[in-house]
């Protein structure tokens, strides 16, 4: 599509961008080289001023997150979150497979900004080949003097390492990820303390998503006025929208934040499969609140501030499209069975709640439900909310409660 903007998926316009010499011929490592000439605090300030927000789902301001690291506790660590596991999300995989050097440069900038000398890349276990691929790239960068001791003649040294997970959605949650990286079960930690103060091995740690990090070479290399010409005031830059479900052309679409759902679904995604009628949108993967796909929703700009208009967060922008063929009581069973499988079991409301919601939604779909099942399901979901150690439990209730509220007729007579 002609009006996609490629700041992150630049490999779609530049062949062989994964090769070091090609990447360097195309402004590669200029952002990192500029950063190395700056004071670390100034790099943090520039990223703060850029308005970049975390692309993993929470949308937290990246520069602000970095600024929480105390300067009297060392060493600092940076961990790249490449555990991409949210149903409907497949953006980080494309960056890692096709534009790995921009991601690595971004990670290097983040490491320099917080003066970490070690960075880890935590990848989901299924990304086994990508990890081997990144290891090759890291070795090349060491050969080229861009990684290792005294980089480019400065006093700054940095080593990067890959680490594979082994099939656990919860490890995308940043404290569970740290536990896993420490060789333990991937179960979230009680907070506070937050990872910025007590993270990996008890040391101050920044955890950033792959897409977030991949923005940094653009911000440092081309400056904030260039970066901020894309997106909105509160949601600057571009975003990779993962479009899936009942559309003709599912895939990754990089668009400035602020474009509408209508543009994504109908112009880029080619509309609904088999000329069907759109019913609902999930904007944050399986963790989404269901959005009724009326005219107002379709014309809503996709930004982090859209929660105010739609009551549904953008999250990781994993946009799953549902048409009239989709029965919402089937859908909530799909999402609930996912969360039941992925609940780590540490806290009771999530472990038991997802188990029972799965039990009830299965019965709702069996053709022989109990008359009070819908009310019971609502009750269980409400009891989970606000009581869990991490967001997984909360996420498990989103489609359930919004589905029953907005599509009640799908649940009647089930």
């Amino acid at each position, binding site marked *: 599509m002609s009006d996609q903007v490629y700041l992150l998926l630049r490999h779609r316009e530049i062949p062989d961008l994964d090769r070091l010499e090609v990447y360097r011929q195309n402004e590669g490592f200029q952002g990192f080289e500029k950063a190395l000439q700056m004071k670390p605090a100034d790099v943090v300030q520039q990223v703060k001023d850029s308005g970049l927000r975390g692309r993993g789902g929470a949308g937290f301001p990246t520069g602000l997150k970095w600024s929480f690291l105390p300067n009297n506790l060392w060493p600092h660590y940076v961990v790249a979150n490449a555990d*991409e*596991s*949210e*149903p*409907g*999300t*497949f953006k*980080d*995989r494309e960056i890692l497979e096709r534009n790995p050097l921009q991601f690595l440069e971004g990670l290097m900038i983040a490491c320099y900004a917080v003066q970490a000398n070690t960075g880890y890349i935590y990848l*989901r*276990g*299924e*990304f*086994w*080949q990508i990890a081997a691929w990144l290891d090759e790239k890291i070795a090349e960068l060491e050969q080229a003097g861009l990684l290792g001791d005294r980089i480019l003649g400065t006093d700054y040294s940095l080593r990067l*390492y890959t*680490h*594979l*997970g*082994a*099939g*656990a*959605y919860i490890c995308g949650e940043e404290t569970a990820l740290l536990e*896993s*990286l*420490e*060789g*333990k*079960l*991937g179960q979230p930690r009680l907070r506070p303390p937050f990872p910025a103060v007590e993270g990996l*091995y008890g040391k101050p740690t920044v955890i950033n998503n792959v897409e977030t990090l991949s923005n940094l070479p653009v911000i440092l290399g081309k400056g904030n006025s260039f970066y901020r010409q894309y997106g909105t005031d509160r949601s600057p830059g571009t975003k990779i929208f*993962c*479009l*899936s*479900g*009942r559309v003709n052309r*599912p*895939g*990754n679409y990089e668009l400035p934040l602020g474009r509408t759902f209508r543009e994504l679904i109908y112009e880029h995604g080619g509309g609904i499969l088999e000329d069907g009628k759109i019913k609902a949108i999930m904007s944050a993967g*399986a963790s989404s609140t269901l959005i009724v796909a009326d005219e107002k929703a379709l014309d809503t700009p996709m930004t982090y501030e859209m929660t105010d208009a739609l009551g549904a967060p953008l999250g990781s922008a*994993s946009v*799953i499209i*549902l048409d009239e063929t*989709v029965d919402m009581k089937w*859908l909530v069973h*799909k*999402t609930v069975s*996912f969360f039941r*499988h*992925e609940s*780590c079991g540490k806290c009771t409301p999530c472990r038991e709640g997802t188990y029972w919601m799965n039990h009830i939604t299965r019965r709702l779909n069996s053709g022989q439900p109990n008359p009070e099942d819908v009310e019971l399901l609502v009750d269980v979901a409400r009891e989970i909310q606000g009581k869990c150690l991490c967001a997984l439990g909360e996420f498990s209730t989103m489609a359930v409660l919004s589905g029953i509220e907005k599509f009640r007729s799908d649940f009647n007579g089930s």
Partner: protein
Amino acid sequence: MNAFHAKYQTEIEQILAKYPPERKRSAVMPLLFLAQRDDNYISPNELADIAEILEMSVTDVASVVGFYTLFYDQHEGRYRIQVCTDLPCALRGAETFFEALCKELGVSSGGTTPDGLFTIEEVKCLAACHRAPVFQVQGDGEIAYYENQTAETALQVIAALREKAVQEARSREGAA
């Protein structure tokens, strides 16, 4: 040095070098992947050897194996055919695809073919929702993705793996 350490000495040293020396435990997942490489399963001996190398209890290592779905302490098919049937894939026919594949292989979900080569199972999201139906093959120390699949193309992949296993068995017989 125990048997597992001796078998993979170079690789184990490389893995341990990634983490601070006093944080050896971080290497437990990489070492478990290593143990699984040759036969897609972690044996009790390997479990004990990994515990010794990392100065962990055997129970601690076993709990890691139990927690993460990609680690196996039971011998099943040499290749695990893992089909994603999560929501985005299911919206594009993954459930029908999975049923068709089970039927063709003559096994039910989670079952293993009589030749012991293939275990077929449903798995959670594989980050390939735009190319559904999709499955991965876990075996021989690798994980490979197959995307935009039909039952026919999937059966070709399975036939090729079966052929590979047959050839290997022949060459072993030849050598013996």
